[in-house]
């Protein structure tokens, strides 16, 4: 056994992109492997839950956990890994903010299960069989995790030491974080390991952003040809830049696509969606009610656009579904 710091990578409700981003370190990964000992990485190596349970408390110096928490198994693993890790890092948008899976917080759990197991076009399930958390067949008992009512970020389950933002985090942010951990030069606990400035600050189009933004019409990216030299917002395309933390070096605007907000808000903002809503409404130009209504219809899905990555950690967290809450007590 080496005396190098032990590192874990784990995934919950995620797409696998965060795992790939670790490999995106390219040749830099060799330096990381020289310095640390990877003890847990289910996507690349075979590990069982019992192996993790057998570890001593805080045996892993640091665990990078990606993905949101949607099932009881994910909740349990998050709790176990919290106990076994010195530092627990929420890696990527889903662990940090709830991420794309968090958009499911707009729908009742029953509707999601009904669609997936009964109604989706590729499903044939005439007996309407649904998974059970436990079932017995020929004397053998099997179990499945519970599917929670809503999606949660990692810090809504356990205490998180640091956050690495992005969908996925850029190799540069990961390398900076690993270097800071190895050198013991970490910022205060609870920090997001990226600059605390808006994305616009590092956008290559920054100089073309008008001081007094006046948006006459909103367009979706597929409806217009975006001028690669001009501020995307000034072209009427919703760009989340003003309400989003930088650190990615404005990768999307640099690739001629608007920012979609994956790094979440800066520390001064509690609710990313409310903030960009405020900015866009204030910066559009109509003054008559009918005209305002018509122009703002150019943003057909405010929740999906403004909270694409941050719905579970927004102030409201989830769509209110009165059927699930007791009726008015009168």
């Amino acid at each position, binding site marked *: 056994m080496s005396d190098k710091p032990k590192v874990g990578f784990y995934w919950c409700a995620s797409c696998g992109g965060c795992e790939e981003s670790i490999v995106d370190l390219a040749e830099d990964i060799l330096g990381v492997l020289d310095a640390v000992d990877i003890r847990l990485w289910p996507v690349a190596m075979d590990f069982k839950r019992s192996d993790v349970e057998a570890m001593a408390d805080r045996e892993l110096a640091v665990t990078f956990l990606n993905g949101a928490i949607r099932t*009881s198994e994910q*909740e*349990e693993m998050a709790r176990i890994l919290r106990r076994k890790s010195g530092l627990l890092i929420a890696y990527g948008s889903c662990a940090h903010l709830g991420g794309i899976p968090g958009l499911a917080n*707009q729908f009742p759990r029953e509707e999601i*299960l009904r669609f997936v197991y009964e109604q989706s076009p590729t499903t044939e399930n005439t007996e*309407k*069989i*649904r*998974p*059970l*958390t*436990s079932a017995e067949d020929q004397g053998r008992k099997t179990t*499945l*995790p*519970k*599917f*929670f*009512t*809503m999606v949660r970020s990692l810090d809504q*389950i356990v205490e998180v030491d640091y956050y690495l933002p992005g969908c996925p985090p850029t190799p540069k942010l990961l390398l900076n974080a690993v270097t800071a951990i190895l050198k013991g030069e970490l910022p205060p606990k609870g920090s997001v390991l990226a600059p605390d400035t808006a994305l616009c600050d590092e956008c290559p189009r920054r100089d073309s952003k008008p001081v007094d933004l006046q948006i006459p019409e909103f367009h979706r990216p597929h409806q217009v040809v975006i001028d690669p030299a001009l501020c995307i917002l000034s072209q009427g395309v919703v760009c989340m830049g003003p309400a989003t933390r930088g650190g990615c070096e404005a990768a999307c605007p640099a690739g001629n696509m608007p920012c979609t907000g994956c790094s979440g808000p800066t520390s001064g*903002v*509690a*609710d990313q*969606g*409310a*903030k960009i*809503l*405020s900015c*866009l*409404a*204030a910066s*559009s130009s*109509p*003054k008559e*009610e009918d005209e*305002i*209504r018509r122009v*703002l219809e150019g*943003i057909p*899905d*405010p*929740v999906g656009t*403004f909270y694409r990555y941050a719905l579970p950690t*927004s*102030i*409201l*967290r*989830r*769509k*209110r*579904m*009165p059927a*699930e*809450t007791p*009726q*008015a*007590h*009168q």
Partner: protein
Amino acid sequence: MDRQQTSDSSGTWQPKIIAFFCNWCTYTAADLAGVSRMKHDSHFRIIRVMCSGRVDPQFVIDAFARGADGVLIGGCHPGDCHYMEGNYKALRRFHLLSRMLMSMGIEQDRFRLEWISASEGEKVRTVINDMVRRIRALGPLRLPAGLAELDGELKTREEEILHV
């Protein structure tokens, strides 16, 4: 606000409405309603802001999330804003935020924007009474309690998830 009463002495639910009134028009109108001894529903907490354009959508969402049943914004009539453009910004934010709140399950009648000039004390009373009536019809919003109930699922892992 969490600590404040949500029901009267008989245990009946009473609506709680947060009102953001602009310093120059609507707050002055509410003051006028007061000195004129107009009676109106009392289920209001008024927060004075310098301009309706100062009302960050985060304030509105936060009020609902902390237990408000309704949020009212009062500002100067179009063209009368002390800061020229503030009420137009408020109006555009109101339209987009209303649509977003409805997508999040918060009914339109719970969120309202009214232009009330400094001389319209009577309008303050009419708007407040009408809003209380509409919110009584909708019943309590219960956002903090609803989320707290859902977080209860984190401790009850053993039970069966699905019933066929």
